[in-house]
């Protein structure tokens, strides 16, 4: 452990020390300069699309971190969206010298990795995963720089209330529609618990769960049309958001507002590509990147250089959180000056980063390992670009409400 701490040992003496530290092979390979991070993302399988989006953010990261004086060595690992692969690959990554693990977008995969990290005393920083069950389980080597599902819903509903009030919208009835997959169902359950406690001005007249693998959502939209609510609240992924939009346009269904209390889908590249001008008007309430932050601008510039074929606006959510997880690791490593799990984890828990990418206060972790300072914003698609419209301190435009007509969009 002392070897890594000095950071001055050359390769030969490192090798000489290897014999003495067989029990801790990860430390032997520490270069002393760059932290070796295993970035585990679902780059194939069911969550491939989101995994790739996170990956693009990771590609843009090293340059930004280097400019800030941090050095990281990233091992890119595909979890294939599978628990078994997540678990074995975590074992392998740590064998191969990973001193810190970051991942894994999906809650089940993250739990599989967390168990390995816990046993091997290697810090795991969760970039994105919302299952509340992840933290508060007594994991010593896990922190999460993301919101829990109930947190997303609470903030999302609060913002829906505030933004409708600010725009003088009189919303009396709402239909809640969600994909019956892991995330959508978790959000629906949180909604069921939280909605009654918030004293919202509208009531939910119907809650509709749909099959995430449905070939189309025409009947589902017909069903909503039958209820004809003022507000449609949706929790989607990109694929079903596209189908939903198409069928709403075809059936000329036009509520006063369509808002998501917090879900992906509406800002994904494939959504914009697929529905074009019909993407405009949707509002989603999520943690979002702070356009006004210097670091965000630096990340955006680097993103453009490394991913010329992708728009930062659309990858910013995934890229931003993946960047921040890497930043947290690099920052902790710099402060700790050591890469052994115990020291590094202590430093990670003591994180306090004021300037960062996502909206919200300084990055810190509470005793559960969650960051309580993550903020949410209302983001609206305007001119086929996600635009922060609320709250005012981070907004760059005013919300467009009521929902603009489908007809005549080009």
């Amino acid at each position, binding site marked *: 452990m002392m070897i890594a701490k000095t950071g001055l040992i050359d390769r030969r003496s490192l090798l000489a020390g290897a014999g003495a530290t067989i029990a801790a092979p990860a430390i032997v390979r520490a270069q002393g300069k760059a932290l070796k991070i295993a970035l585990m993302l679902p780059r194939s399988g*069911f969550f491939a699309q989101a995994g790739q989006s996170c990956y693009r953010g990771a590609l843009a990261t090293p340059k930004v971190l280097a400019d800030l004086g941090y050095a990281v060595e990233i091992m890119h690992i595909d979890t294939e969206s599978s628990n078994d692969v997540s678990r074995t690959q975590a074992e392998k990554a740590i064998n191969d010298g990973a001193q810190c693990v970051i991942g894994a977008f999906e*809650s089940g995969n993250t739990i599989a990795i967390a168990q390995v990290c816990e046993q091997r005393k290697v810090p795991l920083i969760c970039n994105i995963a919302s*299952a509340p069950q992840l933290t508060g389980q007594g994991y010593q080597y896990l922190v999460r720089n993301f919101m829990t599902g109930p947190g997303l819903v609470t903030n999302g509903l609060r913002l829906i209330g505030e933004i409708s009030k600010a725009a003088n919208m009189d919303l009396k009835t709402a239909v809640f529609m969600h994909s019956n997959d892991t995330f959508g*169902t978790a959000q629906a359950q949180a909604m069921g618990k939280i909605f009654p406690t918030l004293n919202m001005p509208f009531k939910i007249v119907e809650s509709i769960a749909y099959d995430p693998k449905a070939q189309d959502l025409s009947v589902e939209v017909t069903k909503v049309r039958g209820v004809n609510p003022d507000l449609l609240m949706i929790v989607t992924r990109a694929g079903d958001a596209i189908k939903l939009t198409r069928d709403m346009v075809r059936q000329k269904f036009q509520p006063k507002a369509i808002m998501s209390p917090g879900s992906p889908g509406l800002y994904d590249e494939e959504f914009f590509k697929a529905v074009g001008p019909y993407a405009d008007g949707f509002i989603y309430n999520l943690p979002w990147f702070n356009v006004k932050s210097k670091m965000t601008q630096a990340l955006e510039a680097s993103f453009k250089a490394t991913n010329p074929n992708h728009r930062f606006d659309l990858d910013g959510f995934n890229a931003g959180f993946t960047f921040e997880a890497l930043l947290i690791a690099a920052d902790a490593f710099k402060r700790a000056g050591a890469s052994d799990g115990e020291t590094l984890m202590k430093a990670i828990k003591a994180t306090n980063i004021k300037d960062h990418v996502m909206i919200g206060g300084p990055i810190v972790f509470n005793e559960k390992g969650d960051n309580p300072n993550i903020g949410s914003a209302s983001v609206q698609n305007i001119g086929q670009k996600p635009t922060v419209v609320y709250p005012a301190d981070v907004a760059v435009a005013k919300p467009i409400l009521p929902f603009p007509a489908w007809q005549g969009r080009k």
Partner: protein
Amino acid sequence: MSGALSFLTPRSTIVLIVCGVALLVAPFVVDRYTLSIILLSLLGAYLGQAWNILMGYCGLLSLGHALYLGLGAYASAVLFVNFGVGPWLSVFIAMALAIGAAAILGWLGFRFRIEGVYFSLLTIAFAEIVRIGFDNWSFVGGAAGFFLPVNASLSDQWWNLRGGPFFFYYLALAMAVASLVIAAMLRSSKLGYAFLAIREDPQAARALGVNLNRTRFLALFISAAMTAVGGVYLAFWTNNLFPAQILETSKSIEIILAPIIGGLGTLMGPFVGAFLLVPLGSALTDGLRAIGLSAPGVKALVYGLILMAIIASTPNGLWPWIARKLGLGAREQ
């Protein structure tokens, strides 16, 4: 026991002992990554053995074994979290539930003479209905999943199936060995001969006085109960359950690949298949990354090609071929 193992030739006894010892000492020799792969292989061998009893011995092709796996996993997890029932007790309830489900399936299938490909499709449909049911059943978390607590305070409570990698490794090894013993005993029993008779020719078996439906039910029950035990293990090993993973048709397919590739209806087939396919998957991941070809999809594509190649070249599976080459298991058919 001695009767069950009477098929062993001296040579195969030696090989079996060598493999057994290797597996016993593995945790002290290999690194944790390799150990996790061996563990998954053992689990694959166990589940393959369970499935093989139905298909390999009795000739009933089930494509929906994820049903019993998922029922076992969910039953033990829910009993543990919501009712405080430990896994060593709930495993019996899990088996009973799986047998119950198998009874309904069997009743439909055997009573109405649903045979061949129709039976296989019935098993898929049945498993899918249950999966969608679990997806929408909020008591067990629905599609959002069911989580077992992983408190540090619970670690090393072996009586609650809590422990480190060694514990789960030896548990998997014990289960795999037990499944082998059960299968071996079945094969040399009267019931086992009835299974084989039905597989070869149901009508002739009936003429010989074999009660077709009763025998088939028994094969289905044994297979389902064993698979449910695997589900209990999975629940406490992974600590999170999602219908979209554990009850999916893709899980059923995963279960049956090993015994078919290894050698259907043989005792060692599930082992050979699992110890080939699981490491193959990991080797592909590592190998493709090493040569810079790790684009998403390449691995599964190569895996598919290998599956096609194996099934085209060794239709009866690998074990009979290996056994012949090495002069082992002369009395395996």
